[in-house]
């Protein structure tokens, strides 16, 4: 598409610009649709676990529930507390939403369907996800209210803690694949186990990493059982307490876009991305994007399942898990994996 537009009357520069803009919209708009649907799926799964029906009124099977909610929120009045820092108060949800969309630029949906196939894809993801905390912290501070402020403090500490272990887990995958490029990481998983299974997660050396990454990604997105930032029994609604209308909706959308991103990352790093689960020729007839979405859906189901069944962690338990359990294990695993890779590539040193 980029080449085609560059060859038309637009010329190379403007053509590139228009093509990239179109591709961004091509990712962002379906993503918003996916977010709306995944909210519905989330509520349905939780309802099923709680033996309820869940949303079932708006549209067939309640499928349009999220859109009805969106319309309702859109029509509401935006209330800005008089004590709030107005500019930052409005900036915070925008930051959260933008950052949640930014990271999708490097996610490969299939071998060719990737907006920016850059060599530092993993680092880019790390950099962007480390920005996510600002939306929360700024909203907590700018609200000028007790509960959001507590929530912001918690969120900052929580996200930083789990980013450390996520970094080490990413490093061990990068060591295994030998590249920072997300597409190359997926390709390296082809036929990884016995030349048949397309997934790093089944490798006994990387399986613990896969489990830790799943748990860390729940903590990183402040998703239950780690939703200490929005613990309603302690903090009302956390950093979103003072928000209403679209500013609230932006937080909401950003949160779910982040959850989807983390599902995608889980799939790309450990479960073979757009590759079919096993290396069997007929399965390659199915487009890669379908495999990616199916796998993402499985991961998301685990997210919902955990929300419905696991009680919320206490704050000190959360910190302990991050710093005293995940961090040492992941550091140890980096040594283990790098030792294995060295022996695998260069032979036994003695």
């Amino acid at each position, binding site marked *: 598409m980029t080449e085609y537009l560059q060859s038309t009357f637009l010329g190379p520069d403007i053509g590139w610009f228009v093509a990239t803009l179109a591709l961004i919209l091509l990712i962002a708009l379906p993503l918003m649709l996916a977010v709306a649907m995944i909210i519905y799926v989330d509520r349905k799964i939780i309802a099923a676990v709680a033996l309820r029906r869940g949303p079932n009124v708006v549209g067939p099977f309640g499928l349009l529930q999220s859109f009805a909610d969106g319309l309702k929120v859109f029509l509401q009045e935006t209330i800005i507390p008089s004590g709030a820092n107005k500019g930052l108060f409005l900036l915070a949800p925008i930051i959260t939403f933008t950052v949640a969309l930014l990271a999708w630029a490097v996610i490969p949906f299939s071998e060719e369907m990737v907006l920016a196939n850059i060599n*530092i894809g993993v680092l880019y993801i*790390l*950099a962007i996800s480390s*920005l996510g905390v600002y939306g929360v912290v*700024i909203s907590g501070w700018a609200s000028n209210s007790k509960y959001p402020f507590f929530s912001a403090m918690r969120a*900052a500490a929580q996200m930083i803690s789990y980013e450390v272990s996520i970094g080490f887990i990413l490093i061990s995958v990068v060591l295994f694949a030998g590249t920072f490029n997300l597409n190359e990481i997926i390709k390296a998983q082809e036929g990884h186990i016995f030349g048949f299974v397309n997934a790093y997660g089944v490798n006994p050396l990387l399986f613990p990493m896969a489990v830790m990454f799943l748990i860390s990604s729940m903590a990183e997105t402040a998703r239950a059982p780690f939703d200490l930032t929005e613990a309603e029994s302690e903090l009302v609604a956390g950093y979103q307490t003072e928000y209403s209308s679209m500013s609230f909706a932006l937080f909401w959308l950003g949160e779910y876009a982040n959850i989807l991103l983390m599902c995608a990352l889980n799939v790309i790093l450990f479960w073979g991305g757009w590759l079919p689960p096993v290396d069997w020729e007929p399965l390659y007839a199915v487009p890669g994007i379908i495999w990616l979405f199916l796998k993402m859906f499985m991961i998301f189901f685990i997210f919902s399942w955990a929300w419905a069944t696991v009680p919320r962690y206490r704050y000190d338990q959360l910190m*302990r898990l991050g710093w005293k359990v995940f961090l040492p294990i992941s550091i140890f695993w980096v040594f283990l994996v790098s030792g294995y890779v060295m022996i695998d590539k260069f032979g036994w040193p003695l």
Partner: protein
Amino acid sequence: MQIFAFYLFASIVIASGAFCIFARNPVHSVLWLILAFFNAAGLMLLVGAEFIAALLVIVYVGAVAVLFLFVVMMLDIDFAELRAGFMKNLPLGLLLALVLLAEIIFGVGAWTAGGMGEANAVVGPPAGGPSNIEALGALLYTKYIFLFEAAGMILLVAMVGAIVLTNRKRGGVRIQNIRDQVTRRPEDATRNEQPEVGKGVEL
């Protein structure tokens, strides 16, 4: 296109640096600083140092500035007192500013005078060569291995030092023993009794 991006990033860096100094609210200062970091990373990207750019965002924006923000948000700052200190430190500040200005003038002078050979050329990685990360790694782990490890040791010592300085034993604090809590079974804590009518249970 590149020129346009350069001037965009550079002007935002300078403007946000200035706002960082002039902002009255320290939280705003930190946020302007973050914007400056972010655009500096953009400048790094323009010269083809994508790895450095990513590191700048991950380390400075993602970790250091969050900690700054964390501390500044919790501080109870008296703005009047801050401004009173301004006049007192003005001479020292002016001296520092003069030194920096002189250095910049010397630097620019030496650069325009030429004679620095290749330093004048715009540096960038050759297209199609090894990627940033590979090139950096190949240098860091071979030619500069001892310097690299020395830097690592210094950081480790600094970390240990910080922990030793702030770690103090306090008496009279109840600390939970996680292992005890996790290994405790229902049988240790509860018992099942069927008391006869009118007898009650001894606790």
